[in-house]
């Protein structure tokens, strides 16, 4: 014979446990030394699970991908130049992009009219991009990478959601800061290749 209601009480005890833990764990955390602003939760923690955006931000892993950016050799705050540009307009990223959101115009030498390995125009339609990262994965020149910036909400889209070559370029210093491991690996590979 089963007594009706015992399991209901057990369920109540589960939620009460969470309620009490949210306060006790909270007290423990205020007295412990928790890094503010670099939150990533540990699986052994109980209690409140919230990361209070925008005051606290969840740290993103290095491989986190939102929108693509073009890399040029330089420091933060500088403007890109064709000399510092890494992109050779080979077109692989445009070819491998699944929704075909990349448009590239290959630059031409103004004197002879012959095509040069530089891109004169580069467009990405952010409203078509699916953040898949294939362009960055298959670029042979480490020229296009996936960026971490996700705070992109805006009130307009017709103009601001077409990223052109100026908006897309970021410096290698920025890239090294946001992707330290990948940067170290690529620099190592570059050095090895230069030695050979």
């Amino acid at each position, binding site marked *: *014979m*089963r*007594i*009706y*209601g015992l399991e*209901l009480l057990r*369920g*109540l005890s*589960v*939620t*009460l446990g*969470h*309620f009490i*833990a*949210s*306060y006790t764990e909270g007290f423990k955390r205020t007295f412990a030394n928790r890094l503010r602003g670099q939150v990533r939760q540990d699986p052994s923690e109980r*209690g*409140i*699970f*919230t990361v*209070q955006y925008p005051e606290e931000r969840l740290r993103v892993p290095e491989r986190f991908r939102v929108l693509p950016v073009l890399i040029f050799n330089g420091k933060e705050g500088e403007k890109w130049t064709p000399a510092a540009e890494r992109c050779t307009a080979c077109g692989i990223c445009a070819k491998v992009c699944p929704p075909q959101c990349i448009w590239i115009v290959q630059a031409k030498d103004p004197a002879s009219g012959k095509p040069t390995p530089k891109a004169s125009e580069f467009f990405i339609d952010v409203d078509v991009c699916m953040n898949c990262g294939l362009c960055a994965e298959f670029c042979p020149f480490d020229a296009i990478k996936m960026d971490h910036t996700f705070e992109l909400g805006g009130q307009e889209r017709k103009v601001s959601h077409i990223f052109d070559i100026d908006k897309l370029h970021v410096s290698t210093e920025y890239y090294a800061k946001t992707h330290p491991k990948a940067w170290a690996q690529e620099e190592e590979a570059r050095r090895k290749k230069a030695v050979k």
Partner: protein
Amino acid sequence: MGLGFLIPAIVILAAAPIGMMGLTWYERKVIARMQDRFGPNRVGPYGLLQPIADGIKMFTKEDLVPEGADRFCHLLAPILMVVPSLFLFTVLPLAPGAVAAPLATGLLFFMAAGSSETLAIFMAGWGSRNKFSLLGALRSAAQMISYEVPLLLTLAVIPLVVGSLNLVEVVKAQEGFRWFCATPWGLTALALTLIAGLAEVNRTPFDLPEAESEIVAGFHTEFSGMKFALFYMAEFLSTLALAALAAILFLGGWDGPAAGVVPARWTNALWMTAKTLGMVFVMIWIRGTFPRFRMDQLMGFAWKVMVPLSLANGLGACFWVLRPGLAGNVVSAALPLGAFLVFTQLWLTPKPHLTTKWIDPALKL
């Protein structure tokens, strides 16, 4: 007669919305904490100004009346819902002497005012000109009516024991820590009042008529802006009033140890508030934990379990009063317990398994 009634009336009219707003805040925070999150905490310190923002927003929303709807009904329904729930507070004593209307039939008045909300719900469903709103309203009305029976039967023990329907008398009878919830019949009655009360105010696990995962219509689907705010207010006011009633009837009301520093009435009011909030906490706790009953299960529970149980409880209370002593106490404890065990088993007997008959069509080829 004078204008002596104005002061309590103004106090109630001012305090009730504030209480309701505080209650919405309290509910959101408690449920959030049970779900490992914070709840509103950006609008003012600890989110205390959140209900005010909600109020301002609802006040400024457009009032949409569906085409062809009965405008008068549509307008009147929320008002008819809120006003009785304000009436409920007139008979609830906060501290000795702090009651708006110390009626001799206080408890009866409370139940009568609470029951009249059923009419408002029906008006809301009718005035919406939406067949699903109407269905939701009818379900809600049926639920409220059928849970009033066990509620009244349960509360019948109070005049039996105390000898009066006056709520002030009820509290006085429990003074000195002789709270009724320490008796077997009182504990059962408290549990029954709580459950029936949840059904009366349409809260989980009895909130099927409002259920958002059903035919997306409760009776208040077609109401927007201030009218919806009034429905919202009525639900929370009823919850608060019911929790206060349970505290008064079974938890001793304002009874509690006094601190020497402040006047006794203030500590009494504090105790009353604390007990009410404790009962509200239990109601919110239940809301955050359980899934809801289906309509037929809900009705079945009311008629097949709660009514017999409340009758048995009444009988047990009789034994407690008329035969004080160990024998009487044991019988008065055994009766509700026995009724509970017997009737839940009967109700829980599984119905014959509905095996869907299915024959492979390939065999007929």
